[in-house]
């Protein structure tokens, strides 16, 4: 279980994550939604110990993330960040192989390479495996980074906007893949999504953030309501039931 207690972060007096308390249960897919600047990425970075917090604690299976050795956590929790840019020239396979670093410490075994092969296969990247990342499209690169994260094979998988740059086909494939990872491999998937309908259709639980706080949390059915959406995003939204899914319409 990921247990977030009173976590706060401020940049120059401006509080961007304000005393957030949140418990994310083991298993399933949890989506974090909310307008730009709500503090979603900042919260995810603190949960994954990439950013120091000003107050509060985060524990993962009882391990305090700020005190547990980094390499112990790396075998339990992985994170995909919102923007990934690299200084050096890597192929897709090189990048995905880095996902095994917590286990291989730079010397991948045959078993590690089998994980790499599977991750490339999951994300349909075999054909691109030996291409350099800087020669790929944004969506292809995004999939390579997701493959690296999955290759880390951790119980908790945190992804900050994994659908960035993906076309419709790949976005659907990505959500199905994450759903399968949770259902079949028993992993806990936590992801930040911008498309509230993806969040509605694919998650077990939704956390909605606004102004650095958790404004709402609940099942898709509880969260996908016009008044909640209007409060979160400040636009008029109607929610319709389509084949048992709650779909928000906001183009009109």
């Amino acid at each position, binding site marked *: 279980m990921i247990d977030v207690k009173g976590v706060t972060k401020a940049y120059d007096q401006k509080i961007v994550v304000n005393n957030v308390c949140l418990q994310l249960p083991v298993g399933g897919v949890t989506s974090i939604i909310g307008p730009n600047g709500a503090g979603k990425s900042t919260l995810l*970075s603190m949960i*994954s*110990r*990439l*950013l120091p917090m000003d107050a509060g604690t985060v524990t993962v299976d009882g391990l305090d993330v700020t005190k547990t*050795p*980094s*390499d*112990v*956590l*790396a*075998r339990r929790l*992985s*994170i995909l*960040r919102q923007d*990934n*840019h*690299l*200084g*050096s*020239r*890597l192929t897709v396979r*090189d990048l995905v192989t*880095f*996902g095994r*670093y*917590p286990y291989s*410490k*730079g*010397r991948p075994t045959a078993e590690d390479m089998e994980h790499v092969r599977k991750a490339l296969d999951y994300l349909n990247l075999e054909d691109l495996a030996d291409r350099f990342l800087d020669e790929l499209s944004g969506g292809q690169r995004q999939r390579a980074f997701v493959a690296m994260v999955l290759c*880390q094979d951790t119980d908790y998988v945190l992804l900050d906007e994994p659908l960035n740059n993906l076309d419709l086909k790949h976005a659907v494939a990505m959500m199905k893949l994450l759903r399968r990872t949770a259902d079949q491999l028993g992993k806990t998937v936590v992801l930040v999504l911008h498309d509230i309908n993806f969040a509605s259709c694919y998650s077990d639980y939704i956390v909605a953030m606004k102004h650095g706080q958790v404004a709402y949390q609940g099942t898709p059915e509880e969260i996908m309501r016009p008044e909640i959406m209007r409060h979160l995003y400040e636009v008029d939204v109607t929610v319709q039931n389509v084949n048992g899914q709650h779909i928000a319409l906001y183009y009109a």
Partner: protein
Amino acid sequence: MSLESLAITNRVPQKTLSLSRPAKITLLLSLFVALTIFAFMTVDVKGNWDFVIPFRGTKIAAMALVGYAIAVSTVLFQTITNNRILTPSVMGFDAMYVLIQTALVFLLGTQRMMALSPQLRFVIEVVLMVSFAALLYRWLFGGPRRSLHLLVLCGLIFGVLFRSLASFMQRIIDPNEFAVLQDMLFASFNSFDRDLLVVSVVLVFAASAVAWRIRHTFDVLTLGRETAISLGVDYRRVVSIILAVIAILVSVSTALVGPVTFFGLLVANMAYQLTDTYKHRWNLPCAAALSLLFLIGGQMVVERVFSFNTSLSIIVEFLGGLMFIILLVRGVASR
């Protein structure tokens, strides 16, 4: 049999024999280094071999040590800062070392400094250098990534600050003491400090041993701070260790031949271009080999062609400075 199957059977034995590109380059460069050393030792020997061999040998040892220290410190520095323009010298490392040398004379006086053996004095300076560099630069590089512009600016300010503090102290100390100090600071490729050679070898060896133990983190560090942490690197610790290693290497090269600003940039970036990989197992040896090649080959040219009328540091700094400008212009254009 079709042509294609022929082609494939032809390719197989080649494939098993051929080395990867970076391996080939490294091998080739090592060969060049060996040839250059041989040439340096044997060219134009007049008179007594018993004199020439140790004389040229120590010269080569000093240059090899300096070349290795500059190359390795630059590559590692660029790895932890995630960029290919900054070097320890651009960030004011060697200015800091000069300041420490000056401050010691200033505070303790030459009398007490001269009572110590040069080797002991050097070790004290290195220890101070490691502590200060670890403190100051960990603050700069240990946390979340800062913008390159801010870093370049910081480096510039540090460099100027350290140099002005040093020259301020040099100005107000006793002229006699200044003469002693100047002698210490006046190291160059032509007149390196022979007293410090052995202790330098020991220090460089120790620094390399420390770096060797954490070598598996180097490649991961090129992915950036956040990714390295999420893959389980103990970032603050590793960066502190690498900064300490860099501080030792810079102290050695500055003590032996004086500050060299842009040369590391030249060899590191040439190595990246040649190997075309992020892997330190190739980049580090390649950069070191290039560095040795330039220094030893360059010294030979300076001695034989220019008959000591120009100094090696001017040549290597000119080439390195050119590289700095090219990288800056290219970096700006691609942004």
